[in-house]
Each structure stands twice: as structure tokens, then as C-alpha cells.
């Protein structure tokens, strides 16, 4: 057991730490509320574009577009969405582990795939392992707007069309509730399964179905990726909130046990002093 002052120092520093984690928890909480709102605001757009895409792509079977066609796979791309930094519990490690498992199960050589990374943690992770990063975006805001990620997403789709890769998988954390995120693996390109809950409409096409698909499909694929990013952001802030809450609770526990130690040590010192005084007095008699 350390001296009284050592324990006192430990208590003060743990208290300071708990103040920081508490503040971080509150920041994450407010980010989370807004991220959830963003994800909600995105829903009408996503639903509508899904509905229209399904109607156009399924309704006109003669319309072919490179993004709808499966081609022999020479190269696969993996888009992985992580957070901008750590201190998020298992948020980053979960998605990275799932991505690694997915990649290792499918490929032997590093030349068979490329990585597209959204978020700094993922970039560092893949860089350290010497994997081919085709594209990366770091410094994504806590509340990303579409304009911010548009360039990267655009390029991703462009690379597929140009044949830089033949399939695109996406790994991200799907926000279930504030204490649960599920890692999702989703195939984005080629667009083979476009699902819709609503009955497809039959539309007139102006000027033609092909030309509409030309505009619609990239927009649809981009919105799939952006939707996943918003989803992941909500999960990220929730995970950050939870991790910081746990840290604060742990700090409180530590402070309690240190206080107990401190009181014991103080009492021991007092008792010793009394014994010394009594001993001294007895020696005088």
C-alpha cells in the first residue's frame, strides 16, 4: 500500500479522467441524437429511389446497363466503413474482423482485391497490413452530408464502370439499438437484387429506359453507400456513448476503492501516532 499522498494523487487523477470520459459521453450522446435524425431524414429518399429503381429495372427487361450485368470476377473491391477514431468499444474491431474474415475466405493473394476505406481507423488498419487501398476518405464529419462523401462514392462507382473491379462488397456496422450494432456484409455491385416492398409501377420513360438507368443506377448505388455510412455513424456514436459510460462507471468504482484505501491508511497513521504518544508518555513515568 502506497503512502497517503500516493493514494490521494491516484484519486485526483482518476476523478479528472472520469470528468473527461463523462464529457465525451455527453458529446457522443448529442452526436448520436443528430446522427439518428440524419438517418431518419434519409429514409424517404432511399425508399423512393429504391421503388423507382425496382420499377424501372424490373419493368423493362430489355434495358441492359453495365451496372446490372454480372461479369467474370477478376478483382473484387471491399468497401469498409469504420469510425474516425478509437475509444468506441468494439465498434471498429468488429467490422474490421468481419471484413478480414470475408476477405481471407475468398482470396489467397493480395492482388485479387482492393480496399475502399471510409474512416481513418480502417485506413490505418489496412495500410499496416499492406493491403491495396484503392480509395480512402478520412476526416468524415460526425454528421456527414451527402456533398461531403459524393466525390469518393462517385469515384467508387466510376471505377466499377471502368472495370477496375468487377464486384463491390460493403462491410459496415448496422445500428440496431444504442447497445447493439450488427456487422453487415452486403453486395452492392453489380446490382442484382433490387428489392422493394411496394408493387412496381409501370412508367412511361422519357426519353428511354436506358437513358434513365444511366442516371438512376449510379444515383441508387451511391445512395446505398451513403445510407450505410449514416447507419454506421449512428452506431458509432452510440458505441462511443456506451464505451464512455462504462469508462465513467469504472472510474467511479476505482475512486470508491481508492477512497477506502485512503481512509484505512489515514486511520492507521492516526492509530500509530496515538500509540507513539502513549508509548512516549509511558516511558516518562
Amino acid at each position, binding site marked *: 500500500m502506497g503512502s497517503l499522498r500516493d493514494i490521494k494523487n491516484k484519486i485526483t487523477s482518476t476523478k479528472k479522467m472520469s470528468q473527461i470520459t463523462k464529457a465525451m459521453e455527453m458529446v457522443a450522446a448529442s452526436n448520436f441524437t443528430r446522427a439518428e435524425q*440524419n438517418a431518419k*431524414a*434519409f429514409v*424517404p*429518399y432511399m425508399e*423512393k*429511389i429504391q421503388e*423507382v429503381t425496382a*420499377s*424501372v429495372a424490373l419493368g423493362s427487361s430489355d434495358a441492359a446497363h453495365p451496372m446490372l450485368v454480372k461479369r467474370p470476377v477478376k478483382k473484387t473491391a471491399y468497401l469498409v466503413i469504420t469510425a474516425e477514431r478509437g475509444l468506441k468499444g468494439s465498434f471498429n474491431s468488429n467490422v474490421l474482423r468481419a471484413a478480414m474474415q470475408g476477405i481471407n475466405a475468398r482470396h489467397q493473394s493480395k492482388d485479387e482485391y482492393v480496399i475502399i476505406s471510409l474512416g481513418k481507423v480502417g485506413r490505418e488498419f489496412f495500410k499496416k497490413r499492406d493491403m491495396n487501398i484503392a480509395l480512402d476518405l478520412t476526416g468524415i464529419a460526425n454528421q456527414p*452530408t*451527402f*456533398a461531403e462523401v*459524393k466525390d469518393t462514392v462517385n469515384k467508387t462507382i466510376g471505377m466499377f464502370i471502368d472495370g477496375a473491379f468487377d464486384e463491390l462488397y460493403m462491410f459496415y456496422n448496422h445500428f440496431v439499438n444504442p447497445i447493439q450494432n450488427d456487422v453487415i456484409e452486403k453486395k452492392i455491385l453489380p446490382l442484382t437484387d433490387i428489392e422493394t416492398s411496394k408493387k412496381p*409501377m*409501370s*412508367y*412511361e*420513360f*422519357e*426519353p428511354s429506359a436506358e*437513358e*434513365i438507368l*444511366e*442516371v*438512376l443506377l449510379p*444515383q441508387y448505388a*451511391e*445512395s446505398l453507400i*451513403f445510407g450505410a455510412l449514416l447507419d454506421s455513424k449512428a452506431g458509432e456514436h452510440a458505441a462511443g456513448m456506451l464505451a464512455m459510460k462504462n469508462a465513467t462507471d469504472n472510474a467511479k468504482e476505482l475512486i470508491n476503492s481508492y477512497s477506502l484505501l485512503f481512509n484505512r491508511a489515514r486511520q492507521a497513521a492516526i492509530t500509530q501516532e496515538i500509540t507513539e504518544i502513549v508509548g512516549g508518555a509511558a516511558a516518562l513515568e
Partner: protein
Amino acid sequence: MKTIKVSVVTPDGPVYESDVEMVSTKALSGELGILPGHIPMVAPLQIGAVRLISGGNTEYVAVSGGLLEVRPEQVTILAQAAEVSDNIDVDRALRAKERAENLLHQQKQENIDFKRAELALKRAINRLDVAGK
């Protein structure tokens, strides 16, 4: 007068929602006016202004491309970015315009960046146009 429901949605949320008498847009194939009861239709849009006319008033929404979906009782515009004329940040659009113009001056050769700068310029000019109305 019969009205038709119009909504303009972007990935960052709905931008405009209201009932109007007529929607006038610029599709890739040309100007397109839509009245209530139009047959279901899908058309890609140009970067341009959408005019929404109701009760003698005209409102303008700047859209950067996207898609127009028409149903007999509803019109939906899916754009990656859109602003109602009152909400346009004129300073930002001016800056974007200058930036794009500079880029265009620097590189006259045909490449992707050139195309992108051109699109950026179009969007900026469109925003300024709509804001000025």
C-alpha cells in the same frame, strides 16, 4: 383548381413539400410541364430550376440533376442536392463559380476534372440564377 402533391427529396432530407397547380422542370429531353392527373412517368433532369406554380405564385427550387418521378396524384423529384430559392447561400455559390471558372481556365484539355469543373460551374450558375428570381 386541381392540385398535385410535390416533394423534392435529397439524401440530406426532404427539401420541399407542398400542393401546387403545376410543376415545370427541365428534363434531359427538354422543358417538361406537369399538371395534376399526368400519366406515371420517369425522366432524368438537367441541372436547373424547378418552377412550382400555385395560385398565381411561382416558387423556384434549384436542383442539381437527379430524377423526376410522376404519378397521377404525386410528383417526386429525387436530387442529390436541391435548395429552395430563399435558402440558397449566394456567397458560397459565387465562390464555387469562381473556383470552377479558374479550374476551367487552367486546364483546357479533355479529362475528367474538366468535366467535373464544368458541372460545378453549371450548378453554381444555376443556384445564382434561382436565387436571383
